[in-house]
């Protein structure tokens, strides 16, 4: 159905920025953007059936953002439907202003084969947002034999990753990268030297020392980043570093980029907002991998986004059940549920505090992710696909379990009050999320 969005303020760092415009949408496209589009003038150009169907949305100076693109989610289906399903994960995405998301391969069975990819795609067709399944690097993510990367590519997979695990054998990783490069397949690596991690459950530093929790040194992540940079140089295969979390990691990515190595990196909202101090009190919802790091690391990540060294912000949405996160910190599952809340948190804690600006944030959450996954260029321009999020920067709300669309209520921000909430999300010109009256509704 055609839609007219009136008086929204467009925030698109590569097109209209902080400009109040009216936006006309027909089918899945933006067909017109102008200072003012009046129904009367449309009568001249369109027939009555168009005008009869036309829905008008008064945006009252709320922000209109290009739909966010998440490079890193866990939708848990198939295999762990008690934690999340493709349907509920996509609902959380829509409620969070995302219109496209990539989901990791650590399902059961692992997405190491075209049949599983087909299953995910077919479930996604019925879901609220667009899903790009990531395949695994190795069979069953065992780190031993290559997954059928060619078949995965033919099935439409744009990237492979053993996310959740590192491919520890450097020779396997080398071969995977060589092979993937031939299929134009992006390799995403979760960087974690398992020997250095040992039984660690939180960042190594003062807080692990006083809390008595087994530590994970930053070096566990950094030695694998270093290896991957060297292997990328050797194999001429682009590498994307998942959930970069350390200052030295940022430095290494910067050096590699300067050398012309084809490397990209993402970090997460929780690593940009929290530090390992949040673990004091032993809330299992603060247990995540990579762990929340020191304040120096957090500062370097923020700076890395500002300088474009870190390309993307990705949620690493990792939903878990209540029981997975109940009780002993060192026996709880790793991960933070993030799709519902990321944009609001990043706005409230970083943009509104002048730590990042909208332009930096949207580059990292829209344009760069699209480039990394080689998706159609996003943006709020005439002729572009109408993937949009309307954001009310003044809306106050509280993060509560029942407000989250994700099955995973595991966020360390539970109970916190925020300013700024997604009001509407449009995917391919269709309204999929409506919160104009605070109804928090997904529309199928």
């Amino acid at each position, binding site marked *: 159905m055609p839609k007219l969005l009136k008086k929204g303020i467009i925030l698109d760092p590569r097109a209209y920025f902080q400009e109040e415009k009216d936006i006309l949408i027909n089918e899945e496209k933006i067909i017109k953007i102008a200072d003012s589009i009046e129904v009367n003038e449309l009568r001249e150009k369109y027939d009555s059936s168009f005008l009869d169907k036309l829905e008008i949305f008064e945006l009252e100076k709320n922000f209109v953002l290009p739909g966010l693109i998440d490079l890193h989610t866990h939708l848990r289906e198939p295999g762990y439907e008690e934690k999340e399903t493709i349907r509920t994960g996509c609902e959380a995405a829509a409620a969070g202003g995302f219109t496209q998301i990539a989901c990791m391969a650590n399902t059961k069975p692992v997405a190491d084969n075209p049949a599983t990819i087909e299953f995910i795609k077919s479930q996604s067709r019925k879901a609220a947002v667009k899903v790009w399944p990531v395949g695994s690097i190795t069979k069953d993510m065992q780190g031993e034999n290559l997954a059928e990367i060619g078949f995965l590519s033919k099935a439409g997979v744009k990237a492979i990753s053993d996310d959740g695990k590192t491919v520890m054998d450097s020779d396997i990783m080398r071969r995977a990268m060589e092979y993937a490069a031939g299929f134009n397949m992006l390799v995403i690596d979760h960087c974690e030297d398992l020997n250095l991690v040992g039984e660690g459950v939180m960042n*190594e*530093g*003062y807080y*692990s*020392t*006083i*809390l*008595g*929790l087994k*530590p994970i040194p930053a070096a566990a992540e950094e030695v694998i980043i270093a290896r991957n940079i060297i292997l990328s140089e050797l194999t001429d295969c682009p590498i994307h570093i998942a959930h970069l979390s350390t200052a030295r990691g940022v430095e290494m990515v910067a050096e590699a980029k300067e050398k012309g190595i084809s490397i990209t990196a993402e970090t997460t909202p929780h690593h940009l907002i929290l530090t390992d101090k949040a673990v004091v*009190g*032993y809330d*299992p919802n603060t247990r995540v991998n990579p762990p929340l790091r020191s304040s120096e690391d957090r500062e370097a990540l923020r700076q890395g986004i500002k300088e474009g060294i870190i390309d993307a912000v990705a949620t690493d949405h990792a939903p878990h059940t209540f*029981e*997975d*996160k*109940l*009780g*002993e*910190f*060192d*026996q*709880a599952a790793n991960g933070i549920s993030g799709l519902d809340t990321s944009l609001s948190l990043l706005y409230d804690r970083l943009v509104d505090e002048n730590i990042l600006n909208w332009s930096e944030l949207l580059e990292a959450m829209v344009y760069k992710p699209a480039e990394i996954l080689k998706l159609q260029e996003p943006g709020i321009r005439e002729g572009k696909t109408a993937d949009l999020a309307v954001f009310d920067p003044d809306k106050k709300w509280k993060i509560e379990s029942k407000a989250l669309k994700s099955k995973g209520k595991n966020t360390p921000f539970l109970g916190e009050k925020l300013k700024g909430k997604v009001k509407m999300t449009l995917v391919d010109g269709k309204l999929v999320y409506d919160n104009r009256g605070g109804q928090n509704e997904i529309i199928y």
Partner: protein
Amino acid sequence: MSIKRKDFLGLYNTDREEIVSILNTAESMKEIFTRTVKKVPTLRGKTIVNLFFEPSTRTKSSFSLAAKRLSADVMSVSKKMSSVQKGESLLDTAKTMEAMGADVVVVRHGSPGAVEFLAEQLSARVLNAGDGAHAHPTQALLDLYTIKENLGQIEGLKILIVGDITHSRVARSNIWGLNHLGAEVRVVGPNTLLPVEIEKMGVEKYTDLDQALSDVDVINILRIQLERQKSGLFPSINEYIKFYGFHEERLMQVDDEVLIMHPGPMNRGIEIDSEVADGKQSVITEQVTNGVAVRMALLYLLAGGNPEDAEIT
């Protein structure tokens, strides 16, 4: 006088004044030991549950004896904890104890923070009997008590803690408690057994035992877990004995007045030789006796007994 908070979980947040009053209460409790009838009716009708998720003979017996000397009803529950066990069963077990009417639940658990988690969930008062490598406040308090009883004060003393600091809840609780009371704390051990940024807790860090020993007043020797050697944290038991073990010659380096402490159980011949453990400077058995007094004091303060019944003033 009573404990300000609902639960007693560690010494990090316990101020000097609170520690001093616990130690003073323990002194009154210890006086009971000299009586022919070593029992007072203070906690009559109160129920204390010892909930131990980790094997422990010494701490559990000490708590049981403390509760019995105060005439409380005491029940001990030991649960084998497997690594796959979920928090739900931990919570369920504790809730069961509470449903049975426990006034105080004494908890030992292998996971740091598990006791704090239970304390948040239960309306009964929770006393930490050791949680992973995080805290063991009653051990630290009995150490403080023993030092104070022998040396008259704690402020200004130089206390050396020797051995595996990384995995030691005893070391952490001692460091907080000693610092609150104005002692100077040193730790010594191989770097692999000293956690990062330990200095920020307010200690001086040493790897050379001879240097660390200069001018000390108290040496608290920690048990070395033999499996640490297997996990590659030091090369051999012999090397550990050579560089960090306490034998008679090592003791010659320090003043005759220096106290030797050990939280037990000891590996005789490894971190401590029998000559040292049983020597005249050793206060290791006093620590055990004082442990009962300190635990009586805490149970009394937490369970809110009647001071007149205790006949303590």
